[in-house]
């Protein structure tokens, strides 16, 4: 090699750099105002509405499929440009109106006449029935939800009265029926489209619907490149007025530091996801010029889960002691930075029937020590499991660890990935863990049955079993008298608080950081945003 070619080799690096620098001026090219650029860290695992999905799958479905009815949103006082859903308020979507029969045991929906699928076929009562039949019978997750929550076990109970009238005939009135109908899992699918892609092994076309959108919504999926981006474009000839944003670009950004820098640099419009940004980073972006922070109290519960089937947490006094030892006064400001509400009840504070005055627990380490002595139990080594990537949980666990050690526990914090954590939890393998739960249906009994009923094997993470409470839940589940529902909810909360089933931590706030010119952002019960009403200015 002579000197010239040697220099060539070493100059290559410089050439790469120089050529790249030549591209510089393009960076600040004005972004198309009708395009919304969002950063998140999720892919689409499946688009089948009936399935349980990753956030990426849910958000895409929520924007590309219409449902029979929707949760109605109202402006949030003091937060111009922001809206949220209200308890027991719905708005027409595919159904223009609805009514109840037989004291509410039957729900009747009148379907709009002007809505068409992209194929040109009409959206009618047959299509709506197909979607519910499919939910009940296809391998998804609605086949578990529909029977247990609205007492429908046979497709015959989904009735087409005429081409534009659809009815659900439940065994008895169900207070949760309207919410269940609203879930994006019950999105309306074009039956002919689905049937065209069905096979003998897959009669409900799950394989096809996993990767394709088979319905109508304000947006359609035009690009799905996992690990890169998902692009939605507004649907031509949509039955409602066209949305402001013509394109939604959801960028995959796996690193949180990058997401913060992108916001600060205004290279993206907002960050979404669960959690998307840690409270600390949200706080650091408050007051950043050109950005705004939106946060509203939400129903997601976070608690220190004690396994009631394992000593020493089978001892109620130990559980009470733990509740007195949780340093919430340090956790709220230093972990949540104010984006949360201290937990006072096993029921979320925005849920009907909630009482914030029943709980006696507050940080009192002397009382906690006293209770441990009274319990007769001997605290020893214990593992506290948290999930990788749950920043608030990791941080809270460090604060809690220290206090529990004052009670005589020797706490080892164990980090597990989501799936491993869930698997251990279901088998009862965690003694202590940090758990969270969000009830899509904002109803105390929906929440209580999943978290505390003996038979809820997969979600009752505390392994709490109390026949009295079980009976109460069974009776109240389908109680329609709102007063009775609320009254019984108080009794249930009292039982759970006295038994100190959960170590009370906090209810999350729902936070989003975005460019200052964005408005029309809506927060619904299921937390998945729809971009239909979003706009600039």
């Amino acid at each position, binding site marked *: 090699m002579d000197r010239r070619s040697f220099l060539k080799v070493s100059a290559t690096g410089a050439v790469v750099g120089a050529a790249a620098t030549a591209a510089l001026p393009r960076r600040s090219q004005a972004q198309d105002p009708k395009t919304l650029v969002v950063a998140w860290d999720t892919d689409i695992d499946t688009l089948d509405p009936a399935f349980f999905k990753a956030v990426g799958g849910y958000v895409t479905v929520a924007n590309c499929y219409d449902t029979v009815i929707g949760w109605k949103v109202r402006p949030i006082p003091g937060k111009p440009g922001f809206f949220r859903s209200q308890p027991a308020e719905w708005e027409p979507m595919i159904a223009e109106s609805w009514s109840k029969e037989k004291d509410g045991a039957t729900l009747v929906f009148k379907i709009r006449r002007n809505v068409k699928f992209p194929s040109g076929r009409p959206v009618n009562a047959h299509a709506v029935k197909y979607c519910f039949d499919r939910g009940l019978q296809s391998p998804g997750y609605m086949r578990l939800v529909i029977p247990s929550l609205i007492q429908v076990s046979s497709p015959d109970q989904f009735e087409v009265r005429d081409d534009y009238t659809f009815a659900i005939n439940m065994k008895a009135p169900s207070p949760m029926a309207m919410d269940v109908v609203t879930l994006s899992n019950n999105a309306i699918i074009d039956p002919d489209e689905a049937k065209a892609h069905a096979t003998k092994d897959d009669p409900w076309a799950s394989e096809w619907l996993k990767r394709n959108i088979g319905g109508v919504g304000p947006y359609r999926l035009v690009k799905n490149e996992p690990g890169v981006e998902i692009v939605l474009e507004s649907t031509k000839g949509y039955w409602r007025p066209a949305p402001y944003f013509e394109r939604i670009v959801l960028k995959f950004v796996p690193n949180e530091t990058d997401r*913060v820098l992108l916001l600060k640099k205004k290279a993206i419009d907002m960050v979404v996801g669960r959690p998307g940004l*840690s409270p600390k980073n949200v706080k650091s972006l408050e007051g950043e010029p050109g950005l705004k922070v939106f946060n509203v109290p939400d129903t997601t519960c976070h608690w220190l889960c004690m396994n009631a089937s394992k000593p020493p947490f089978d001892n109620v006094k130990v559980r009470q002691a733990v509740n007195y030892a949780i340093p919430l006064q340090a956790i709220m400001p230093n972990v949540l930075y104010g984006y949360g509400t201290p937990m006072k009840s096993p029921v979320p504070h925005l849920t009907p029937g909630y009482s914030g005055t029943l709980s006696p627990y507050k940080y009192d380490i002397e009382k906690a020590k006293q209770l441990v002595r009274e319990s007769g139990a001997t605290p020893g080594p214990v593992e506290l499991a948290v999930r*990788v*990537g749950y920043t608030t949980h990791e941080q809270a666990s*460090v604060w809690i660890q220290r206090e529990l050690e004052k009670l005589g526990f020797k706490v080892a914090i*164990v980090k597990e990935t989501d799936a491993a954590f869930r698997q251990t939890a279901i088998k009862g393998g965690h003694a202590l863990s940090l758990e969270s739960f969000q009830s899509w249906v904002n109803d105390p009994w929906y929440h209580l049955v999943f978290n505390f009923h003996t038979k809820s094997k997969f979600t009752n993470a505390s392994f709490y079993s109390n026949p009295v409470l079980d009976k109460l839940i069974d009776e109240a589940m389908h109680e329609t008298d709102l007063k009775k529902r609320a009254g019984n909810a108080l009794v249930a909360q009292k039982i759970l608080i006295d038994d100190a089933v959960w170590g009370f931590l906090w209810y999350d706030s729902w936070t989003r950081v975005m460019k200052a010119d964005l408005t029309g952002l809506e927060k619904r019960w299921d937390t998945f945003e729809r971009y239909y009403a979003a706009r600039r200015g």
Partner: protein
Amino acid sequence: MTAWRRLAHDRLSFVGLVALGLVALAAGSAPWITPYDPDAPDAEATLSSVSAHHWMGTDVYGRDQLSRIVHASRVDLLVALGATAMALTAGTLIGALSGYRGGWTDQIVMRAIDAVMAFPAFILAMGITAALGNTITNVVVAIAITHVPIYTRVIRGEMLKVREMEYAEAARTVGNPVRRIVLRHLLPNCVPPLIVQATLAMGFAILTVAALSFIGLGILPPQSEWGAMTAEGAGNIVSGEWWLFVFPGLAIMVTVLAFNLVGDTLRDVLDPRMRGVR
């Protein structure tokens, strides 16, 4: 003693040697020299910047970062030493067995070693930690497994050479037990390259732990450990707590750099044949 002289002579290596000495000293005396309990949260002092009270600031829990970094040196050196010792022991035994027995044993061992070496070390460590879970022991074991082949190959190579040498033949016929052959003739030839490899491996071990922490597979909190501290602190570059970003990263950099500089010079002196490889 030429090795020592060369180390002292080469200015960079000397600096590296001094740095390593300081880190070892800090690790040894951590409980006596640190001003605070490294694991004690302090709600009053969270995220304080560098000050007279906290020379390297405090973290989100109000823990003194200087105390944590000093204490962390124990964990990191322990991990590096542990992994290296484990790999060295296993590698030596396997290599000696393989080289001594020869034949099928050697074939099987070498194929297994080839298979392990077919993975870039970090990728395999990642796979193993993901499979076993990320406790300190598992991280150490994972790193050790990826390092075993280095030592095995060195020892086996020497073993084969010794076997073929006539003096070994002679020693065997005189009735020298195998153990003595190994101790007398084999080890002196192997020790220099092993020292070189082990020095470099320790730096790698510390970096591996840091990278594992970044992708969520590192050593668990609240144990103070440089890798985890750097991975956590890296996020703070955007929110202004520069001290959480800078200091743990520096601790890693200085230590790994020192291991590398010393290792490189040792290699030049002790093991000229291995120059450049690995």
